[in-house]
């Protein structure tokens, strides 16, 4: 039997936690964790360094709460989903009636790569729904931009408050709807300049050759190889599932490489494309899923002229 606010709820109970002080954060998180431990429910913390220290110091030694090693779980949304699904499956298999997690995205997520984290926050309503999970996602209202808080309200069915309430978010939008909407994707400053390479209807091999020719001067060898994988899959999908013409553009500078692959089609029809593997079910789904795990940011843009996949390797938030 699940305990607490999620008692009787089937599947994933996903809450936002909006706070503007340490006290407000602790007022929600501490009872959430203590009650979970008392009920014998796996209760876990996956917060940044500062908030981890805050919560750890507020709990008694041997509290029974598990502090997940950051370990880069939030480096990429697709990898985070994969890693959490494995964790949840293990606990469910071990007989957990409910699993409690409080987890926050790192500050880097609130920069130019927010669009794919917004997709993450929406997609996990589906991706974790087969597990008896109750999670809270803290957002500091003092530092989180308002447009991001608007996405938070649309991707979290509920908000937990310091006075113990769990309020439904009226703006909440089902992932199948939210994920099909066009996401605003801020252009990378590099895209203001002319592309260093531009190819029309390239083969995957030609696109990879362009990556190797230019990216080697800007990225590590492993980053170049991973970007080659992503580019190869992006071009393959555009050629196989998009509409001509396919255009490949590459920019480099400031320690990163940005590639766009565009075609005249509508892009993937699966709302979870890239975030969840879809072998067999969706054309190109597995390739896009791999692409999302081979770059530091993947943005999907739909417009009147077609679909563009933008791949970034290197820190997407750096200037120039």
């Amino acid at each position, binding site marked *: 039997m699940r305990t607490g606010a999620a008692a009787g709820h089937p599947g994933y109970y996903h809450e936002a936690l909006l706070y503007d002080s340490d006290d407000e954060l602790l007022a929600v998180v501490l009872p959430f964790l203590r009650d979970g431990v008392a009920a014998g429910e796996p209760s876990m913390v996956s917060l940044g360094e500062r908030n981890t220290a805050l919560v750890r110091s507020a709990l008694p030694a041997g509290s029974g709460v598990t502090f997940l090693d950051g370990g880069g779980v939030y480096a990429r949304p697709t990898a985070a989903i994969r890693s959490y699904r494995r964790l949840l499956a293990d606990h469910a298999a071990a007989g957990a009636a409910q699993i409690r997690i409080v987890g926050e995205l790192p500050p880097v997520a609130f920069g130019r790569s927010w669009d794919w984290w917004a997709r993450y926050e929406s997609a996990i309503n589906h991706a974790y729904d087969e597990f008896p999970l109750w999670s809270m996602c803290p957002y500091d209202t003092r530092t989180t931009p308002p447009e991001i808080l608007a996405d938070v309200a649309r991707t979290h069915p509920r908000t937990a408050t310091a006075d113990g309430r769990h309020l439904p978010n009226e703006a909440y939008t089902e992932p199948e709807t939210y994920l099909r909407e066009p996401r605003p994707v801020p252009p990378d400053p590099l895209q203001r300049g002319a592309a260093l390479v531009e190819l029309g209807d390239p083969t*995957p091999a030609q696109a990879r050759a362009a990556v190797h020719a230019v990216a080697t001067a800007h990225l590590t060898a492993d980053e170049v*190889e991973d970007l080659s994988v992503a580019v190869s899959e992006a071009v393959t999908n555009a050629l196989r599932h998009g509409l001509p013409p396919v255009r490949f553009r590459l920019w480099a500078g400031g320690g990163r490489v940005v590639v766009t692959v565009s075609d005249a089609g509508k892009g993937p029809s699966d709302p979870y494309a890239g975030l969840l593997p879809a072998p067999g079910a969706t054309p190109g789904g597995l390739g896009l899923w*791999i692409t999302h795990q081979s770059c530091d940011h993947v943005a999907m843009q739909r417009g009147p002229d077609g679909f563009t996949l933008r791949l970034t390797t290197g820190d997407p938030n750096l200037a120039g």
Partner: protein
Amino acid sequence: MTSAERASGRPGHACWSYDDPAIFEARARAFLLAGLTAGDRVSYVSPEPVPVVVERWNSTPRLREALHSRAAEIVSVEQMYGDGVLAHDAQLDSYATTIAAALADGYAGWRIAADATCLVRDPQRREAFARYEHLVDRFMRTRPMSAVCGYDRSRLDERVIEELACLHPTSDPGTSLFHLHAGDDGLVLDGELDTSNQDVFATALRHTDSGSGDLVVRAADLRFIDYRSLVHLHRHAESRHGDVVLHTDLAPASRLVALLGLTRVRVEAAG
């Protein structure tokens, strides 16, 4: 210079494609003349009537002399390979006899250039010949033999040539993005594997199959491999009831294997 060449000091096993038979013959003659200079006995296998070719070759003194001294021979495709589905064992036995005779006559080895186009136009004969391409590749690794196989682009689909070219250690540019050929302890894989040639790769795995158990694939010169080809390696390993041990320094290979749970593929350093 290829790794096979470095190992044996011989040109090894190459695949050429051509549009003009005269160009193939000119390249073959240069290849065979180099063999004569190196002390090899040489054979040229032609789809043309042998006397016609002999007459052409007689106009070149060095070749005329070699034909006269039996250092060189010109044979028809039917004489060399028969007119049915190729019998692999008999073919390789005849090569062993030819090499032994050449060595007994004081030659350093044997090299052959063959226009094999007419042997692969029929699907059944092509299947047998593709398997033969791998078997002869394995055969010549340990023998003083070199071979060139020529295929006519104007009479064969690109895909047909790709399926044959990929089984050679080297092939003309544009014929295949990858090669899968015989190695010291298994197979050697080089080049690039992606969606454009994943089906050809699966076919190549079948043509190079050698029984059951673990399979070592040396891939130090592999420049790219996508998840589709790793899935083919996994399935191939399953069919052999063993593992494929892929030796490559491509970092994504091990990551993709882990992502997709391809438990039959072990990625190890190229070393």
